[in-house]
């Protein structure tokens, strides 16, 4: 396609996405404004329809934006980056499938980064449903992308243990009491990763990924603070504001919602060539996010315009 005509026609999928979204959403909103001023109320289903279009079009025709890591994300990234090789990092999967689209990308990104830096990674879960999502990360990220890493030597999978904060309260002084074996029933004493790790106090970093209870907050309360272990977290957007007070003293960094995940992914891609082609759900989700946000903001503006217009009209007679 070298001629000038094909060059004009040759628009990428991303361009199609932007064009469709702009036409549909822009036109629709203008019509909506007219309607709302004329009739007052707008059927809520129309709002749902707009959100559906603004989310689905960028999924079908991916629109991507470049992301830069904000300090709250960058600090956590830098900590993992600057830990000496072979440091012990614990990643806890404290979430369920309902939260997974938001936080699983973070879990994948952390796992990639830690393994690429040759840290010893310990995976575990305080949520029963987290264990299967943990297997998903092992299956989709760890094993295919790091075939040279051996389970037990480079990473360990403790799986799920019932007991919520009770589990934390025990492992802060002794892992073996709560986890006599790993998920495959191998005693911890015969796992190389645990050779020098007796309790959480021997860890170099703890990352809790979640958004409910128990989650990052319980980790801070029961492990991070009492054992003085540096902590970071990746949480669902709903929970993020409640964790900001712990930053930067009790939490090194926070990944809040899919934006945090996208920032972390972009930072990884920038520094590691090997991750250029892996799936980056966080960055991919930012397209629909951005468009949906634009639509919601437009709704807020339109709602206010029509509110003031109708109010003025009501006052006049």
């Amino acid at each position, binding site marked *: 396609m070298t001629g000038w005509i094909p060059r004009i026609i040759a628009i990428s999928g991303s361009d199609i996405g932007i064009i469709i979204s702009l036409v549909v959403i822009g036109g629709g909103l203008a019509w909506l404004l007219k309607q709302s001023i004329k009739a007052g109320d707008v059927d809520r289903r129309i709002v749902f329809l707009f959100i559906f279009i603004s989310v689905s079009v960028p999924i079908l025709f991916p629109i991507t934006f470049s992301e830069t890591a904000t300090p709250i994300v960058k600090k956590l990234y830098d900590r993992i980056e600057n830990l000496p090789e072979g440091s012990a990092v614990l990643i806890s999967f404290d979430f369920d499938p309902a939260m997974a689209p938001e936080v699983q990308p973070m879990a994948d990104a952390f796992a990639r980064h830690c393994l690429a830096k040759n840290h010893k990674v310990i995976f575990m879960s305080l949520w029963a449903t987290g264990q299967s999502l943990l297997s998903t990360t092992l299956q989709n990220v760890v094993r295919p992308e790091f075939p040279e890493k051996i389970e037990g030597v480079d990473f360990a999978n403790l799986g799920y243990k019932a007991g919520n904060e009770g589990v934390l309260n025990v492992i802060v002084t002794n892992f073996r009491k709560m986890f006599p074996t790993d998920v495959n029933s191998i005693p911890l004493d015969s796992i190389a990763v645990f050779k020098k790790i*007796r309790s959480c106090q021997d860890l170099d970093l703890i990352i809790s990924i979640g958004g409910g209870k128990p989650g990052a907050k319980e980790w801070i309360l029961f492990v991070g*603070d009492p054992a*003085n272990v540096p902590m970071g977290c990746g949480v669902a957007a709903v929970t993020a504001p409640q964790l900001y007070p712990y930053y930067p003293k009790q939490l090194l960094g926070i990944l809040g919602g899919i934006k945090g995940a996208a920032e972390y992914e972009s930072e990884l891609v920038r520094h590691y060539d090997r991750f250029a082609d892996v799936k980056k759900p966080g960055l991919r989700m930012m397209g629909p996010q951005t468009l949906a946000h634009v639509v919601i903001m437009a709704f807020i503006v339109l709602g206010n315009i029509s509110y003031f217009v109708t109010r003025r009209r009501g006052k006049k007679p």
Partner: protein
Amino acid sequence: MKFKMLLALILLCFVSAVSGFGQSAEEIMALPDSMAMAPPAPPSNVRGVDTDNDHGHSITLTWETSPDDGAGLNNVIGYKVFRAESPDGPFIERALIPSGGTGHIDVGAKEKDANDYLPDHVGFYYKVRAITADSLIYAESEVFGPVQSYGQWFNTGRVPVLVFVIFFLFVTLFFIQKAKGGANLFVRRLAGIEAVDEAIGRATEMGKPILYVLGLGTAADIATIASYTILGRVAKKVAEYQTGLIVPCYDPIVMTVAQETVKASYMDAGRPDAYYEDMVYFVTQSQFAYVAAVNGTMLRERPATNIYMGKFYAESLILAETGALAGSIQISGTDEIAQIPFFVVACDYTLIGEELYAASAYLGREPLLLGSLKAQDYAKAAAIIIAIIGFITMNFGIEAFKHLFYVSN
């Protein structure tokens, strides 16, 4: 110069190759400087003490670095720590510290059958070895010992926590006692309570009922307990004004208590005849089924006022949104921080967090709630004062005050 170095290097390679054929380490170490790396000066002044504020099984070691660490011959790459039960050995390696390190905490297991069991009250001997890139060239410190580990009964690093626990417990018990004794503890009037009164007045004017939702909490949740008191107040006003009251419940036990509360209020208002049991009824214990039922009631009965007080979760926005659509005045209150934004957006008035307790304490004057509220106020006052002092001292560069709040593990 370059030639000399090259020669030395070749010789070194040669020597190390030959050493595999029968030369012992001692012989290599005895080689002249020009042929092998000179051994560094040993680390000095090795000292060991029991680690403070722990449960035992740990010894803290310190030493002074070798003069050849970062200076002099500059060939020290790290230190190895050795431990033995007698000064003559056998010594076992316990740790490897990078160069520049001047200390190590030797922590062992407390279980007798563990590999690295470190018994308490047993004398141990330590020595530190400065190591070089060549594993055969090193220098060892003098042996230090004996040193014993033992546990402490009291962790002095946690004194700040103890002080605050005692302070809070004392203040709480003191004010609960005072409230029980009938002391008149002042609680300011909250705008939310006025909003409740106004809303009841409006319902009366419109001749429509009031819907009161106690939330999804159990009967033991503080938010639910606070909600009973407010329900009592609302029921009393409703009885006086002869307006309708609808209380759908999520929890059967909560329902029983709510029935009693409403009944008592109708008695207080002098209208026991107007009370009937179905005002307060049980719906279901399935979260969203409950929401669906309450939403149905809102749309059918069109209450003038909806009051949501208690524990709420994901259903908060669905309830408040439906109520807003039905055109009711809505007042809410919850201590679930995550749900407050939704209530703030969709309701006319929201009691934020502790305001719910305060409203309840103001209305009910129940000693337990009132006393705890007072104690919390004092805790907040303490926090404000500490924050201001800390802020001032910090800005004048005085660090001592900040250290008072340092808690070690």
